[in-house]
């Protein structure tokens, strides 16, 4: 039994080394390592897919690494990319602080490294940032919600994981807008950790309390869809304005079907493309802007067909 296991282990190890070699084949094109925080939702898969496509268009080989939401894994992946002599590294940090050793490793090897989607705590160690401006996205979402419900009203907010960068920045945007509209207040707030099922349960419990809500403001589309389902189950989907952020495929489909009222697009596919364009310039030794924000756009049934989904 042990011998069999050892043989299987050796086989798997050999196979993984082989596949790594073949995947890294770039036929002499410059190589970019794209180190994603995870590859488990439409947002990250869209960013990565668009980046790879843009690489093909520009004659660059983009290899995607999946850090599985673990900061230590991400650092190891950056270190391997440095060791393998990649020409440039794009990273979506799992953690703002935790990415520091990875930035240092790339700096020491003088390989250009840029952050995408989320800035690092030591952003000055990176050549550039490419991504959305979460505070601006939060501002835009809350402004549009207040436009829809009026100057007097109550909102319930579904947050991402408490303390995560996206949660804090989008909330900062909300707070800034709410400060300008004293008639609108947050009456209920809870985290649902970006998760549809969790948002569904929390919203069910909110509705159960009988508290009057004019709008549910979710920090991403997955949670907005969970909230919408709870409202649909209670036949109250027409009374409450539901919105999200990210413009994921399922969120956009819901807007088309008259479910969600709106979502903020930060041009997900555009982030992937702009990241590769920027890295292309860095590899060629051109200067780039330190911060490259994609534009936040409010998507509703009226303009949903103009949206670029990166397909």
């Amino acid at each position, binding site marked *: 039994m042990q011998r069999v296991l050892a043989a299987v282990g050796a086989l798997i190890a050999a196979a993984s080394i082989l596949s790594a070699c073949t995947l890294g084949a770039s036929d002499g094109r410059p190589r970019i390592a794209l180190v994603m925080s995870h*590859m488990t939702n*439409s947002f*990250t898969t869209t960013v990565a897919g668009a980046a790879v496509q843009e690489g093909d268009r520009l004659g660059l080989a983009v290899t995607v690494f999946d850090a599985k939401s673990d900061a230590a894994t991400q650092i190891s992946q950056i270190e391997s990319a440095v060791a393998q002599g990649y020409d440039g590294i794009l990273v979506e940090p799992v953690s703002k602080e935790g990415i520091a050793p990875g930035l240092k490793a790339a700096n020491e090897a003088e390989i250009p490294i840029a952050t995408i989607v989320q800035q690092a705590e030591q952003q000055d160690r990176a050549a550039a940032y490419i991504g959305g401006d979460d505070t601006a996205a939060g501002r835009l979402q809350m402004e549009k919600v207040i436009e829809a419900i009026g100057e007097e009203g109550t909102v319930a907010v579904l947050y991402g994981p*408490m303390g995560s960068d996206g949660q804090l920045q989008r909330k900062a945007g909300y707070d800034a807008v709410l400060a300008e509209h004293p008639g609108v207040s947050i009456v209920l707030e809870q*985290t649902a950790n970006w998760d*549809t099922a969790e948002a569904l*349960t929390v919203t069910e*419990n909110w509705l159960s309390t009988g508290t009057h809500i004019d709008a549910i403001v979710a920090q991403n589309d997955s949670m907005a869809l969970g909230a919408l389902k709870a409202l649909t189950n209670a036949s109250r989907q027409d009374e409450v304005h539901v919105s999200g952020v990210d413009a994921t495929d399922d969120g956009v489909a819901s807007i088309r079907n008259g479910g969600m009222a709106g979502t903020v697009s930060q041009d997900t596919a555009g982030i992937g493309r702009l990241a590769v364009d920027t890295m292309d310039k860095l590899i060629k030794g051109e200067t780039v802007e330190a911060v490259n924000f994609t534009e936040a756009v409010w998507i509703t049934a009226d303009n949903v067909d103009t949206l670029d989904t990166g397909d």
Partner: protein
Amino acid sequence: MNAVIRRAKAWSVRDAGILLVFLALVLVLWLVSPEHHFLSVNNVLLILVQTTINGILAMGMMFVIISGEIDLSVGSTIGLAGVVAAMLAHPGEYPVIVPIVAALVVGALVGLLNGIGVAYGAIPSFIVTLGTMTAVRGLALIVSGGAPIFNVSETFEAFASARIGRFPVMAVYLLVIFLVCAFVLRRTVYGRRVYAVGGNPVAAEVSGVNVRRSKVSVFVIAGLLAGFCGVLLASRTISGAPTAGESYELDAIAAVVIGGVSMSGGRGRASGVLIGALMIAVIANGLDILGIDANFQRLVKGVIIVAAVLLDVKARQRR
């Protein structure tokens, strides 16, 4: 042998203790909730709905833990089964039975794999199911392309959201599965063998129980029920997310432990596990109603788990 069974069946001080803790929790939440809303009919039905998935998962986990094993893979199975179900549930493609059966088959297969690894590979169940937990989650992500599968038919949506009058069908599933599991454990030869295998596998083998086959069967039951939970979750959220069910195995284990099932196997009751699952749902629902931070909910849940095990140890010392 019979003495072991009798002891397993007897209601101990501690089972009553769990019930008392649960009732005390309900009483407190009823008193502090605005307008005593906590025990309104609607909210009680809601608690049943919110207990269903974890409760059914915990029933499967109960069989495994009574056999002296553990199953960490059920959360990942929910993810894979949900993705498979959602893929087969697009409007106008297949009758609604197809995604449901497919998800059950997926669950049973994962369970079978776990059972064979544990019983015939002689690998500790913690290791086997840790492996399948990781591999099955990977499979869910591969099959779905790393994004939720949406656009399911209305019949599929109704599978979890339908109501019989005011009574949610989710709660019917929970109660039926609970009654079947309780009956199987208490009143059948098979159930008695599960206790025997967990209590003393050597004695069970000597008295003619096929220990290996019994172990495979409990993992299949856990997998099958996890597959069913996968359908329920996909139907409830009208999407099959590859990340769905993450860490659900921990809540299921928590419900089993709170419910007084011994982690060393051989002892426990389905009614206790149901109370354990209700307790977890009640904490979340009650604290949501009171507008208390979710992080605090974790703290309360953790304290209750440890307190339950502490009760368990104390009760055993008295015997």
